[in-house]
């Protein structure tokens, strides 16, 4: 018997068929496993693996409270309760439980939402606390789910609202430090990519698991002192009640470091309830984003320029006639009658515009505010004291203001005569306060800062105190002389308001406001800037009072706010009297 396959035999045909089938299998497997390899690997991974975001915690914001730190902004986990109306069975029980437990967090007409046809997701209540959510979870209602969210809370309420800013519904910081440091505060979410079981629990099996740890946001400690901030807000509120002003602002800085101890405005808002604000202008921090004509507070800078360049001495005299002509304009004093041959020190005490226009003239040829005089004033105002330019403070929406340079067509003699008493230029309160700090501290300019340090795993890490940005803005003798003039002017003009044994000096400002392109006679802004301390200045305070269609005066409306805060600061900082 011949066992060999015969040509055309059935066995041979079967072998050929099997071979073809095997070849088809091999070809198909080659296609699936080699050519479509990446596609199927990806498909398998998408079915077997899940990606989880590990949310980073937003950094906390702290304030100082003496030597301690206290939280101003924190994070709280809150819960949203939602229902799947198609699987809800115990409607009455759910309604009763939500009313009893969720209280004010339930949505209006939430009962009706349980009956919405063809809907699988209806939000019944929002912002429930963990305790409330736990009580509801215990009921184990079918068709009811919980979603965790992180919410920013501000335990001090309205305190430092405009300094802090807020975190909006998308979790993005807006305004204030929340806006400026948003990237640092929000941190970076982590990622977990892993094979999961049916309950979506990540397992360690699998070769392609990825775990990128989260990076929590930085915990920032502000230079703001909670107690000083509270005192300033209290003083501003009292001033608003007393004067009827709609806008009142104040800032306190340490002239030895540039640290901002308090910064407040009225009207204000609570950052935790930012959504209740109807006028978005309230979000702006007027101290840094509302440049204005600072008025007579600038006279201290003009006198400093005159003394520092040896153009004048405070004891030098000029003939005051209550008005002075500059080109085609006549500039008058607000206070009349202190006429005759008087000193510049007297001009400071009575805030006489004519005296400061005269100083500007003496910076030139003594008769006119020449180009050279204007260049000198510009150098002192803009380049040395940095008025009209952002300070670089770590808060969002800082405005620049403007100082018109003599090289510009509008930088003429009339403008610079106005600038000598703080009109015709724009600066923010913080710029003026920072420049004034340099003027009274001996001539060292410190960049205003609001960040004192960070809280890390190792505890509080204070930022090293920065060296002054520039030393020798004015000679120490000029600084001493200006301090003496301002202290004497305050003692003579407002005797008995300050605690005895301390050097308290300052300058009032009453500036006209431009309304419809012209200076209004029915609207003014009152300011006061001053310093306090025993032998050396320990604090600089600037306040501003304004309101639409209202006339305010520096001495009457702004100075009492300074006095109130200053006398309190002496006790708070435990400053011992001189001698």
């Amino acid at each position: 018997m011949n066992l060999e396959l015969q040509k055309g035999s059935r066995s041979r045909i079967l072998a050929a068929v099997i071979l073809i089938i095997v070849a088809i299998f091999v070809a198909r497997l080659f296609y699936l496993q080699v050519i479509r390899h990446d596609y199927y690997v990806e498909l398998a991974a998408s079915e077997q693996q899940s990606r989880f975001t590990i949310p980073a915690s937003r950094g906390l914001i702290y304030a100082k409270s003496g030597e301690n730190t206290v939280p101003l902004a924190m994070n709280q986990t809150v819960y949203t309760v939602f229902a799947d109306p198609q699987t809800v069975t115990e409607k009455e029980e759910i309604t009763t439980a939500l009313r009893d437990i969720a209280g004010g967090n339930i949505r209006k007409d939430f009962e009706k939402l349980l009956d919405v046809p063809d809907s699988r997701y209806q939000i019944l209540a929002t912002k429930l606390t963990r305790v409330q959510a736990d009580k509801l979870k215990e009921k184990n209602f079918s068709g009811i789910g919980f979603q965790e969210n992180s919410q920013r809370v501000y335990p001090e309420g309205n305190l430092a609202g405009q300094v802090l800013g807020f975190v909006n519904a998308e979790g993005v910081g807006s305004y204030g430090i929340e806006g400026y440091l948003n990237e640092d505060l929000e941190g970076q979410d982590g990622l977990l990519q892993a094979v999961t079981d049916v309950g979506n629990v990540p397992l360690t099996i699998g070769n392609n698991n990825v775990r990128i740890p989260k990076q929590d946001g930085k915990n920032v400690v502000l230079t703001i002192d909670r107690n000083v901030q509270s005192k300033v807000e209290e003083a501003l509120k009292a001033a608003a009640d007393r004067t009827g002003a709609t806008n009142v602002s104040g800032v306190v800085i340490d002239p030895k470091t540039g640290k901002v101890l308090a910064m407040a405005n009225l009207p204000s808002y609570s950052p935790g309830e930012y959504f209740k604000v109807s006028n978005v202008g309230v979000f702006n921090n007027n101290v840094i984003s509302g440049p204005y004509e600072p008025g007579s507070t600038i006279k201290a800078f003009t006198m400093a320029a005159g003394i520092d360049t040896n153009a004048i001495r405070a004891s030098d005299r000029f003939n005051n006639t209550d008005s002075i002509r500059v080109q085609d304009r006549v500039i008058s004093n607000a206070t009349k009658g202190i006429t005759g041959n008087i000193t510049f020190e007297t001009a400071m005490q009575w805030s006489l515009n004519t005296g400061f226009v005269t100083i500007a003239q003496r910076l030139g040829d003594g008769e006119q505010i020449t180009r050279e005089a204007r260049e000198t004033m510009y150098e002192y105002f803009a380049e040395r004291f940095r008025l009209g330019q952002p300070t670089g403070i770590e808060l969002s929406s800082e405005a620049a203001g403007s100082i018109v340079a003599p090289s510009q067509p509008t930088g003429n003699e009339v403008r610079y005569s106005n600038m000598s008493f703080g009109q015709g230029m724009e600066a923010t309160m913080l710029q003026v306060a920072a420049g004034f700090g340099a003027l009274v501290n001996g001539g060292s300019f410190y960049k205003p800062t609001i960040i004192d340090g960070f809280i890390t795993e190792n505890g509080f890490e204070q930022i090293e105190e920065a060296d002054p940005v520039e030393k020798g803005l004015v000679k120490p003798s000029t600084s001493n002389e200006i301090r003496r003039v301002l202290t004497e002017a305050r003692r003579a003009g407002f005797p008995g308001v300050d605690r005895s044994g301390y050097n308290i000096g300052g300058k009032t400002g009453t500036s006209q406001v431009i309304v419809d392109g012209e200076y209004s006679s029915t609207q003014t802004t009152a300011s006061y800037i001053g310093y306090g301390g025993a032998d050396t200045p320990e604090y600089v305070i600037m306040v501003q009072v304004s309101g639409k269609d209202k006339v305010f005066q520096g001495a009457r409306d702004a100075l009492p706010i300074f006095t109130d805060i200053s006398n309190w600061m002496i006790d708070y900082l435990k400053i011992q009297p001189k001698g």
Partner: protein
Amino acid sequence: MSYQQNNYYTSRRQQNWSRNQNTTRYVSAIKLGPVAHTVLIALMITVLGLIYLTQATRATGYDYESQRINSQIAELNEEKADLQIENARLTALETIKNSAVAREMTAPASTAFVE
């Protein structure tokens, strides 16, 4: 004709080896055929598979334990954060100012410094 004797050196160690050398060869009476071999190999593979499965299951068990501990940590952190917020609210300046103790306090008439 002279007689020459060759001496070959044999180490003691070599002698010892020789001493322990088996002189009898034992042959097993059990014969394993190809089927038995296949079954044994299959059994070995099964045992190895079971060992692998046991280890993998044990690792997965740790995953569940780890998940449970992580949830517990998260819950405790949440509780801690809630307590910190409550503490901050209770020690907030506004709360302190409105407290009964603060309302009873009066401002000093004067302050002085001790030398």
